[in-house]
């Protein structure tokens, strides 16, 4: 005798447990769940909150427009206290704020910053303003400024002026280094005794290195044009003095200082205004660079092979 429950009884005799009915319900539940998930997946239009949070006047694609901003904007546009504005005025302001927000979001969507130099510049300026806010608000004390002045004294001395000749012994196969030094020394002695630079050079076979202009030059210009070793020697010479022979880059040099006006040192009191400006500028540069450093540490920057 067949003991199995007839097919129709699965659904009527609910008091009894039957595996076939359980499996059927399980399969239906699974199919329904998958169906809902698939619908959600293929028709998703972004997460949406039901209703506007109470502190906001509108939500545009999830971005808030704060009531407080709206009230302030309405007052600015109508030049009236908010309570005295009409519903039409408020609606107009709200519409403008919504329009602006939509345009901003569109700008982000099409990534305007990637192509528009003005947007890029505005974003850079905005980030820097945020970073610099603390430094701009800072008022350095006189002690801080004086410490800065002492650490950067060279910035606050007036530039000196020098008329300097950088002469070299023309190197050739017949002149040994010793002979070159001897010629340079003889020329230097002659210059010290009052012979003109041109005569002392011509008599001993020396010629200008071509690094310096003839005539007056600021110290900083000489510093740029000469090697550090030669500039160190030149900066110690007074007018009418000549250096001893100097070997620099395998060539024998001798320096004649024809005229010299020493750099004028400024006191802290004289330089205070410039110190204040420089201090602020340095602080600003420091925080901007620290900020960039931090942002770079978080960024994934990959370079083309030739710049690695």
């Amino acid at each position, binding site marked *: 005798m067949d003991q199995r429950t007839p097919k129709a009884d699965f659904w009527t005799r609910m008091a009894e447990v039957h595996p076939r009915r359980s499996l059927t319900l399980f399969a239906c539940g699974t199919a329904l769940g998958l169906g809902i998930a698939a619908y959600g997946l293929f028709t998703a239009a972004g997460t949406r909150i039901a209703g506007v949070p109470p502190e906001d006047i509108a939500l545009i694609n999830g971005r808030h427009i*704060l*009531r407080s901003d709206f009230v302030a904007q309405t007052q600015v546009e109508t030049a009236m206290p908010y309570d005295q504005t009409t519903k039409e005025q408020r609606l107009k302001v709200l519409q403008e704020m919504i329009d602006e927000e939509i345009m901003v979001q569109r700008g982000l969507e099409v990534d305007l910053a990637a192509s528009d130099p003005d947007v890029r510049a505005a974003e850079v300026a905005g980030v820097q*303003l*945020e970073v*610099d806010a603390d430094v701009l*608000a800072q*008022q350095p004390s006189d002690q801080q400024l004086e410490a800065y002045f002492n650490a950067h004294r060279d910035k606050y001395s007036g530039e000196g002026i020098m008329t300097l000749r950088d002469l070299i012994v023309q190197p050739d196969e017949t002149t040994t280094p010793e002979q070159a030094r001897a010629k340079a020394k003889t020329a230097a002695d002659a210059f010290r005794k009052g012979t003109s630079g041109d005569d002392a050079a011509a008599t001993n076979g020396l010629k200008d290195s071509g690094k310096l202009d003839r005539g007056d030059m600021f110290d900083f210009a000489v510093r740029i044009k000469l090697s550090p070793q030669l500039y160190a020697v030149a900066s110690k010479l007074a007018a009418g003095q000549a250096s001893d022979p100097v070997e620099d880059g395998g060539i024998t040099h001798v320096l004649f200082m024809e005229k010299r006006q020493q750099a004028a040192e400024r006191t802290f009191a004289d330089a205070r*205004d410039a110190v204040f400006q420089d201090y602020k500028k340095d602080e600003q540069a420091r925080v901007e660079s620290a900020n960039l450093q931090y942002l770079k540490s978080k960024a994934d920057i990959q370079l083309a092979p030739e710049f690695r």
Partner: protein
Amino acid sequence: MDKMRHAPKSLRARLRLWHAAVAIAALVLGYSAYAWADGYLLNRRLVMEPADRIPMDTALAPYAMSMGRSAFQANCASCHGADMRGSTRTGVPNLSDNIWLYDFGRVSDIERTVLYGIRAGVGKSHNVTDMPAIGRQNALSPAEIKDVIAYMHTLRKQEADPAAAERGSAIFQDKGVCYDCHSRDASGISDYGAPSLLDDDTLFGNSDEALYKSIYDGRHGKCPAWAGKLSFATIRAIAVYVHSLSQEAPASPSNQPPGAETEQTAG
């Protein structure tokens, strides 16, 4: 009931205990739900009501005050002090008086300052201008600055050299262009955050040295923006709290909202 009557004595006692426990739990739950709903509704009203009406609302004001007090202590007291009196050493303003650098000291005004700060590096900050470095920029000589300070002393009914004060007055109204921000009568313009020079409430104190430094090097104070860091309800509650404590003090002439005539401004 019949079952109960026939149940053993200990079981009946246990059942009564259970009934009592369930009743207490229901009461606690009910009260919690009421308190939560009440708090939720108050919070909702706090952010939706026009800011300037909150101090007059007998239900909302105490709620905002208690919320604002703790939020102020946690976020603002480190600069402004627990007593809100600020510091002339660091140039942090006293919030317990009724003198405001910006706007008129209404809840909505204070709220804007708490939201977006002052020169906080945010576009909506109060950032129209700042005190220029008049001495450092050689607009005035040190002697001229001292004359202006003498004039400021006379504005505050303090002792000063009359000749220097007269010269200072001329500089204030002409060469120094001080009137442009502080107004001709020196009562300040709160749109710019330019303070009244008629009272003693000075950010960095009233000593000649402090005043000289302000004029010579300029000032550029800062208050952080709290938008995005605190909830809007908390920010509004702080504004209500700060506003409430300032109401007992007299207002500065520069802090009268449009249309509000006082003895000081009328005079």
